[in-house]
């Protein structure tokens, strides 16, 4: 093909995402809303299209650079919601801070142990070390650990959908009705997608989830790059 059609990828991604987001906003049922997550489907459909048309990833990445480049300032801008949430919870900050740290440490530790028992290659265990955090942060942290960012991102998104669907069931099984406990647990473990599912039907838990999600973004960025090499050092 002499005339390149790659310039189409950015407008196509934007259009696809906006349509999916619109459809998702129209969805009322909680489970259907979680399952129709626009980011998840935008990635799946774009990936499926490339595979079906036997198109290579490299030129695609090259031509969608504009979008990837904007991710960096967007991550810096995450300081704003983090700051807004900070002011909300001064009263409970210590307990939430400790809980979020435990959640982040637990995710890295459990994933590393499972990888160890499965004798997974190093690249794979590095890809699975930072799953208790929102997707843009996991991309960066995973890259700095030498893992595969896209794999980590996919896992994080799927975990979010899982939490949005089964979160309430788990809390009723372990007999917890406290909004703070539910919110912080879901916000830390299942980030944006889990949090969105709480905000709609349990606003109080949803508010705690937003705080926990923001905090675990910061905590993951600090804890995981230090903790992961230590765990690897002990296990190997």
């Amino acid at each position, binding site marked *: 093909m002499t005339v390149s059609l790659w310039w189409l990828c950015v407008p196509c991604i934007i259009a696809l995402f906006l349509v999916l987001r619109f459809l998702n906003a129209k969805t009322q049922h909680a489970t259907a809303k979680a399952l129709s997550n626009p980011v998840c489907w935008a990635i799946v459909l774009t990936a499926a299209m490339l595979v079906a048309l036997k198109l290579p*990833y490299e030129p695609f*990445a090259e031509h969608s650079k504009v*979008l990837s480049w904007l991710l*960096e300032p967007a991550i810096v*801008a995450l300081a704003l919601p983090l700051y807004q949430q900070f002011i909300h919870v001064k009263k409970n900050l210590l307990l939430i801070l400790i809980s979020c740290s435990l959640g982040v440490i637990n995710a890295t530790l459990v994933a590393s142990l499972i990888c160890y028992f499965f004798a997974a290659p190093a690249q794979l265990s590095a890809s699975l070390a930072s799953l*208790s955090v929102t997707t843009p942060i996991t991309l960066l942290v995973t890259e700095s650990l030498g893992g595969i960012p896209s794999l980590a*991102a996919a896992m994080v*998104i799927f975990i979010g959908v899982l939490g949005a669907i089964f979160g309430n069931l788990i809390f009723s099984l372990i007999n917890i009705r406290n909004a703070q406990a539910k919110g912080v647990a879901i916000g830390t473990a299942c980030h944006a997608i889990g949090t969105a599912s709480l905000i709609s039907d349990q606003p109080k838990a949803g508010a705690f989830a937003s705080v926990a999600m923001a905090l675990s973004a910061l905590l993951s960025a600090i804890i995981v*790059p230090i903790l992961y090499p230590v765990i690897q050092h002990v296990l190997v």
Partner: protein
Amino acid sequence: MKYLISSVIILTCLAVAKFLTALLESSFPAPLLGMVLLLVLLLTGLVKEQHLKPTASPLLNYMPLFFIPAGVGIIEHLGLISQNWPLLLTIFIVVPLTSVLLIGAVIAYFKGRENDS
């Protein structure tokens, strides 16, 4: 003008963070350091929320768009995934489950299982 000011604040934080990580030869991701810098500026009151909003709000609103290309990169690793699916499935279930149980239990221990109000 307001867009210019907020863009300059965000890009300056990013640039300073990039400079620092390069200077210290650190593998710490520069955008994350930039986020921490900006948070400190907000907490100390050097930067006000309303100065930041014009650019920050649309950036945050459309952030999912910016990581779609990275996510699509998964097609380069389909072989690795199909070879290791039992591991991935185990992690997919066990990691969030243990985190939710741990955090739920810790907070319920201090705050009780019921709503306090």
